[in-house]
């Protein structure tokens, strides 16, 4: 059964040097209560796997300004000029992946797959340094899967077991991240009794989820 903790206790599970997965497409589907609490803590030298690093001064963008992110793996960092600046100053290493490759690397990591071959990016700058393989006459690039120490994800509702449902387009990377980290913390609007969610609608079964945190008032 998932343990219910508050945002402070959630953040206490994150150590210096940890690799985190953080859900969200921009700020949509990002666990902002936990991320905001993280910005009040001291964990540093973090590697963050997330599609973006928030927006200027918002969400994960705060951690960038605090220089606590050592490396970021994602698909779209240009929407936050602070990230671009930190990278140019050499303070923040960035690994850029096509969005579909990022999503699949996380899915594979959670499914026990070591890596996969994708045709996306063949012949482009993002293919540099990657193993190439011809399969049935078509060229593919090898991409290793991704896993993390802690995943911070956002769901709509949980039941007390930790079964999760999502809301609209805030689902994005969250269900894969729920499968791909040693410790998974889900921030939710509401925790309901077991049985209140239909077995047909549950997207993330509870075996993936270690902790639940109820969303607080978000400071944005």
């Amino acid at each position, binding site marked *: 059964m998932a343990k219910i903790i508050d945002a402070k206790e959630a953040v206490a599970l994150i150590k210096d040097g940890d690799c985190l997965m953080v859900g969200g*497409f921009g700020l949509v589907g990002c666990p902002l209560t936990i991320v905001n609490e993280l910005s009040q803590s001291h964990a540093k030298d973090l590697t963050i796997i997330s599609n973006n690093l928030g927006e200027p001064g918002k969400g994960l963008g705060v951690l960038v300004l605090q220089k606590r992110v050592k490396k970021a793996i994602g698909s779209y960092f240009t929407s936050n000029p602070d*990230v*671009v600046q930190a990278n140019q100053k050499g303070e923040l290493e960035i690994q850029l992946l096509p969005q579909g490759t990022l*999503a699949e690397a996380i899915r594979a990591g959670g499914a026990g797959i070591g890596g996969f071959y994708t045709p*996306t990016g063949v012949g*482009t700058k993002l293919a540099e340094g990657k193993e190439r393989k011809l399969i049935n006459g078509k060229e593919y690039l090898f991409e290793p899967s991704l896993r993390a120490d802690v995943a911070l994800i956002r769901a709509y509702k949980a039941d007390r077991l930790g079964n999760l449902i999502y809301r*609209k*387009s*805030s*689902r994005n990377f969250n269900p894969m991240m729920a499968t791909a980290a040693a410790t998974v913390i889900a921030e939710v609007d509401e925790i309901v009794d077991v049985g209140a969610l239909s077995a047909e609608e549950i997207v993330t079964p509870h075996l993936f989820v270690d902790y639940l945190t109820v969303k607080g008032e978000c400071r944005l």
Partner: protein
Amino acid sequence: MKAKEYIAARTAKELQDGDVVNLGIGIPTLVVDYLPRDVRVFVHSENGILGVGPSPGPEHADADLVNAGKLPVTVEEGSSFFDSAASFGMIRGGHVDVTILGTLEINQRGQIANWAVPGKAVLGVGGAMDLLEGAGKVIVATMHTNKDGQPKIVKETSLELTSLRPVDLIVTELAVFCVRDGRLRLIELAPHSTLEEVRQKTGAEFDIEWRENMETKGV
């Protein structure tokens, strides 16, 4: 009709009833406003929606419901939500019929560069490469020249290519080109443009293969 609206309206004619369509940011998002009544398409958004509807008024925006440009949208009846891995599986797996994209430049072979902005750090790619890889048909809907009046269609681009795959069709405010066998083919002029203007504003070689009623325009 302004240039961008013309491009959107002309591009809309390429869509067929029942198509699953992914729309890029900018002009491509306008295309659905110009669909004929008897053509219904299903708009796919790579952040996890099939069945995107029109944008809501500001008072009806839902913070959890945005498109890939992070703008508020609505959903139509019969829509569905899914995660990013499933969404890109749809794209790479060939389940999206058409993608309509903008671009920075297009080379003479119809390959596009639409992700790495010149002079800026290359730190964002998003879903562009996956869409080029997997969409059934790729249509570029773009202004013919850039903000400085320079051709976007050039012999060779110095920008980073998005994919080795050439696009299928290029629609601008002046003309429509198709790409076949690694060559650009001018198939149509816009109502108020001339072959001379297209030649002047295009930085690449192209063949002429008029389609539809172009002969009657006397070109």
